[in-house]
């Protein structure tokens, strides 16, 4: 066990280093210049561009820039080129904004996917199962931005209420309850949209897991000894079908930092995804690289946790 943890940590650190190098190279070698040194902007004279390059260390060779960047990142001194704000502070703020979206989206996904999937598996081949399959594939294949526009158009045109942003603007002095509910309302559409694909995929997965377990001998035995079918499905089958999902909890972790670029941009939600997207457009390297680094770390931690969880819940597995 301990040796597994040790090995795993070393492996992950090596992977992380490669991620750092590759992402740094990709971002610096991609075409385009940071907007502060963009030669196409007629307001900037060549001397200014030169001075900016110097201030950002862009005139140094790549490996030196690499060292400078990660030195600043680890000492917490990295600042965004766009507004000179510390990167970690910006990420922290945005993280808190993305968090409710992520939590509500995740809860929706997991609470809805299970009942839908289980019911499909139990009533396999019936009308319910077929229509659930159809709707899942439909939701899975509609492009997110398109679905978002349709939803916004329908809601705004029928109900005439605002749906964009984190709260209603100019709402004035109203009770705390109003403010809270207003925020919940603004969470609704983006988190439903964020959850749709998740529900579609996860419910399929639940269904197939259930079906697999239901065909096991011990389920047949349980049925044969005359247990009520509810008890067979929900106690004997479901528990065993849940096993693989425990490990998926670990893999949710990276989603925390990634946010959702498309949904956050459409709903002008000031979250992580939108910040990263706008940083990419402006070639704000410190932000892009920091977000990238943090999400790489989270991915690695996530896989580590799911490995551990697997061991804990399934005593048959030894690593």
């Amino acid at each position, binding site marked *: 066990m301990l040796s597994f943890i040790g090995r795993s940590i070393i492996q992950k650190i090596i992977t992380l280093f490669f991620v750092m190098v590759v992402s740094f190279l990709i971002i610096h070698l991609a075409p385009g210049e940071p907007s502060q040194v963009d*030669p196409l902007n007629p307001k900037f004279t060549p001397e200014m561009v030169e*001075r900016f390059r110097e201030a950002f260390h862009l005139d140094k060779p790549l490996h030196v820039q690499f060292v400078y960047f990660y030195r600043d990142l680890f000492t917490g001194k990295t600042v965004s080129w766009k507004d000179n704000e510390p990167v970690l502070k910006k990420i922290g703020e945005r993280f808190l904004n993305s968090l409710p979206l992520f939590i509500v989206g995740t809860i929706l996904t997991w609470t809805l996917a299970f009942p839908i999937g289980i019911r499909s598996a139990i009533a396999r081949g019936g009308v319910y199962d077929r229509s659930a399959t159809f709707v899942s594939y439909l939701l899975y294949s509609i492009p997110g931005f398109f679905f978002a526009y349709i939803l916004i158009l329908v809601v705004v045109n029928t109900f005439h209420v605002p*749906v*964009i942003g984190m709260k209603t603007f*100019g709402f004035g002095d109203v009770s705390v309850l109003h403010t809270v*509910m207003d925020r919940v309302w603004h969470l609704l559409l983006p988190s439903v949209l964020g959850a749709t694909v998740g529900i579609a995929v996860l419910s399929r997965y639940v269904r197939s897991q259930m079906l697999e377990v239901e065909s096991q001998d011990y389920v047949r035995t349980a049925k044969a000894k005359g247990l009520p079918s509810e008890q067979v499905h*929900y106690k004997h089958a479901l528990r065993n079908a849940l096993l693989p999902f425990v490990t998926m909890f670990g893999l949710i972790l990276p989603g925390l930092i990634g946010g959702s670029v498309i949904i956050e941009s*459409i709903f*002008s939600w000031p979250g992580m995804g939108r910040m990263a997207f*706008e940083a990419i457009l402006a070639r704000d390297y410190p932000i892009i690289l920091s977000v990238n680094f943090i999400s790489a770390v989270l991915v690695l931690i996530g896989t580590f946790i799911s490995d551990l969880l697997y061991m804990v819940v399934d005593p048959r597995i030894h690593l």
Partner: protein
Amino acid sequence: MTVRRILIGAPIVLIIFLLQSYFWVPTYEQQSKGNPQRLTEYITASSGDAAILNPILSADSASSDIESMVFEGLIDYDEELRFRGRLATSWEIYEEAFFYVNEETAIPQVGKADASKIVELLKRAKTGDIAIDVTVKASLDNIREIAIIPSRTFTVTRGENKAKFKIHVSAPARIKLVLNEVDQDLFQNLSRILGKGYFSSFDGRSYLRVDHDVGEMKRAEYAREILPAIEHNPIVVFRLRPNVQFHDGHLFDAHDVKFTYEAIMDPKNLSPRMADYEPVKSVEVVAPLTVRICYKRLYSPALGTWGMGILPEHLLNDEALKAEAIERGKDPEKFTMRQSSFNRHPVGCGPFVFQEWKSDQYIMLDRFADYWEGTPNYRRYVYRIIPDPLTQEMEFYAGTVDMYNVQPHQVERLKHDPTYQNFSGLSFGYTYIGYNMRREPFNDRKVRKALGMAIDVDKIIRYVLYGQGERITGPFVKQTDYYNHRIKPITYDPAGALRLLAEAGWRRNKEGWLEKDGKRLQFTLITNSGNDLRKAVLAIAQDAWRQIGIDCRTDLLEWAVFIQERVDKADFDAVVLGWSMGIEPDLYQMWHSSQANPYQLNFVAFENKEADDLIIKIRQEYDHEQQVAYCHHLHEIIAREQPYTFLYVRKWTAVLDKRIVIKETDAEGNVVYKKITPTKTGTYTFHFNKWIKLPVAPVFSAEG
């Protein structure tokens, strides 16, 4: 069974909880009815967030939107696009002109003369003792003062770090003339008295002694730089408004103006405005409320640069920055204005006070109760950042933004809705097809004109722009005086185009293509991808030209490639492009023949001697009427030469709730409501400080 109940119950409870929140959210009508506060807030939507809220450092449009509310300049443009005073109450423009006494050259009828003799001669001419013609007389009458600056010696240092060397100068006497008005023809007129070559034959080299052997070329260059034979120094004296406060209560004065200028010129600050102020020689504080700006040369567009927002010196000078650096634990040596927290909490003396900036969400401003022109009607101004144009529109319908960047097709949709009022007006800029005149067949004016005649621009305006555009015939902003309205746009006439092409030697061959000396009339029209309007123009032009037998190919290129590889390197036949312009009529960069090299803006290589002269005269002329006359003439030349096919100027469009009106108090103290109307300034927000939203839309007796 509990597991089952939980599995079904939990999502149902969650969904009900989420959905019931709908009942707590206000609808469009409730926004204003149940919430009177909302009427005093103006919320506008922008697709991009501001970068840095400091007028001397920012280079993006979102930042300048906010800066125009928080900061105030010395002057700006009024409804008729004339200058009007803001922080300056009045200003005076005059000139100091200098020339070195050229003792080597004989003056007609006088011979070689020293400084005092020349002064005497000029004074005699001024009193009318010498027979001179009217224009020279006018120039002399304009001279208020003549003085001698005695000869002097000084040393200057030149060269880079290690190769520094000294130049010893023993400058001859110099004559200083103070003029009532700026006179760009002064020296030309004076040479009618002092002799034709008096100024041009002045050779500064003989007054220089250079430590170091630099070669004759370099020596002549230094001589021209250190001892210019003649020099125009236009001077602007601004008298500033007394008792104007910054938002923190500090009084505004001339030192703030000087500080703003110095901050722009400080290389540490990397200000993108530096080039605008390069012609300034010095800024002096004459009195607490008088500032004197002296220019190195004649450059009339420079006056417009004083619309720049003025920074508060007391918050940003060296001591303030040092204190901030120490407080925040930064190195005071490396700490510049760019790092200052001021850029996120700006303080100016404009009509609105900065309150809060949440990145990518909103910027909130409150009105400034002590604003010198009177407190704005709106209590609060909110600048929301909504990146997506469709969601902007949705927020507008939901009543949580009052204004957004409405597109022509969206205006079409809202035009007949009684809830809204809509506006449009001409913007500052135009779209054109530019021809590379270095190449065949575009070096022939007839061909260029024929190409223009073959395109039905009115149709483009009607179908591509939904009517939100107007034709344009030349390079000036259409609603300014500089634009020559006597010039009529080229009419759509394909038959006439064919006749002109026939005159130029192009005839249709058997297949119907135009041909000259066995060569087909063939070229490629290019533009950048990502701009649907230009793409449409590209297709329409190609089709129109093909119909008269021109083999036109088209290509769409990514912006960076388009500019860097094709336009900058002059490697194209014809391009569809647009210019957005300032009001100032300075066309030097786009149209002067010296600017036709690679990477310069005259990429079509327009060369015309007469136009060159006019372009120089326009930027040196300080008299508005005269400048307008020059511009009209230049417009005529460019319209005749057709280096571009000028297509259209777009209209900006806007939609507002009808309940937003102008509220004014007349002389007797009665409140008067007026309809908002667009002004020539390219927006409808000119009177924004007087706007307010009413609970019910008023009825205006005389509409229009």
